[in-house]
């Protein structure tokens, strides 16, 4: 079964962030599964799913040691429209990881641009980012490969988690002895 990378947007205006993957038969099934796996708690506003083989990934180390042009043109396989690579511009979403800080998410969405291939999209994204040299990893995804959860479903998919306060650790207090006695 296809593996789908999942991106979660916590609230309106926040970037979509790579949270992990699910296995599913099609995009709608992937979205449903992703909601159960990655949005059991607040907060989530929207999900994107992308077939894993449509993700064009480069780490800083790979960029230092390999040609960007090695990137496949997986957009072709997804859209079925751009068979002749480089012949036509299409939109790409660009994601990057910028820090080694403790985190539960990987790359953040940083922009969308038109390019003729994933490699060209990455070239442009790097040229336009003043701090491109500090990026730790890039993902380039053809916009046509993205399936988003529907706005109409958002309330029924994501709002109930806010009422399930019994899942929040803050509800349970510090316990006998209090938290100050932990980790001497």
């Amino acid at each position: 079964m296809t593996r789908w990378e999942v991106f979660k947007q916590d609230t309106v205006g926040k970037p979509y962030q790579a949270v992990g993957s699910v296995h599913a038969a099609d995009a709608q099934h992937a979205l449903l599964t992703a909601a159960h796996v990655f949005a059991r708690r607040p907060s989530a506003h929207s999900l994107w799913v992308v077939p894993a083989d449509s993700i064009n990934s480069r780490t800083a180390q790979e960029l230092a040691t390999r040609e960007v042009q090695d990137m496949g043109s997986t957009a072709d396989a997804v859209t079925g429209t751009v068979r002749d690579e480089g012949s036509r511009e299409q939109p790409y979403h660009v994601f990057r990881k910028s820090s080694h800080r403790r985190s539960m998410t990987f790359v953040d969405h940083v922009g969308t641009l038109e390019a003729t291939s994933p490699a060209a999209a990455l070239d442009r994204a790097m040229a336009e980012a003043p701090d491109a040299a500090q990026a730790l990893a890039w993902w380039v995804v053809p916009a046509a490969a993205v399936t988003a959860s529907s706005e109409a479903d958002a309330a029924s998919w994501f709002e109930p988690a806010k009422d399930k306060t019994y899942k929040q650790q803050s509800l349970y207090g510090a316990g006998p002895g209090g938290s100050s006695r932990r980790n001497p």
Partner: protein
Amino acid sequence: MERDEGSAEAREFEARIARGEKIEPGDWMPDAYRTQLIRMIGQHAHSEIVGMLPEGAWIDKAPSLRRKLILVAKVQDEAGHGQYLYHAAETLGASRDEMTEALLAGKAKYSSVFNYPTLTWADVGMIGWLVDGAAIRNQLMLAQCSYGPYSRAMVRICSEETFHHKQGREMIVLYAAGTPSQRRMAQDALDRWWWPSLMMLGPHDADSPNTPQLVAWGIKTKTNDQVRQEFINEHVPELQGAGLTIPDPALVRDDVTGDWRHGPIDWDEFWSVVKGNGPCNAERLAARQKAHDEGRWVRDALDAFAARQAGTGLDA
């Protein structure tokens, strides 16, 4: 690979670990680093999945709607945690099917502690307090791991698992202050889960030959004995504060270091359980096999649906 040793890539890898950088999918890594991570993450994922069984058995026996909602959410979380971890292993080239097959064939391990039975409702609370408490100690350590995807899975799991720990503690503290039979039930659960909880953090450092390499690679950032000591120091005062008696007559507080020193652990029991001879090993694997077999029609239906969507179905 032997030739990894001392190569320019290996030196750079070690320098990156020393700088506290995360290794990401696509980065160069020694083959043995990849292999050890797949083994560890796979075992960890299996532990989450098998870990649903001991508590899941009590969902339909929960004494109140609130406790039932909590337990359903907790068991559902464990399923989710297994998914995060299988994802992390997949970034290293492992396939989910292979990992599942290894579990069902008895080739891949899972945490020894889930091979003990849940005999009373208090076991649900005690598992939350002790087993999840020990797991969180281990997972906070692994959240600092050098491999990015494993580290991120651990951060997400710890943030959810703290609820598991606290709901268990709340339940046991309540019973420990309750009727005589509730107190007996809480103490009996502690008597049965204390030692398996210490054991689940792994053999003593002197008997854990993989640990030095795992620490050097930044996969583990603390040893088994260090994590166990943190767990004991956190839980002994709280359990005693709840009026319970820890079933270790040798347990004593070291006034100099502040550490609680435990008595000897029965490692023969631990290894017997790890080797498949614990009270519930056969039952746990049989339950996983049954779920796998009974879910086959769902997987087949999904495959058929996917083939039809792709225009390659039998009815295309």
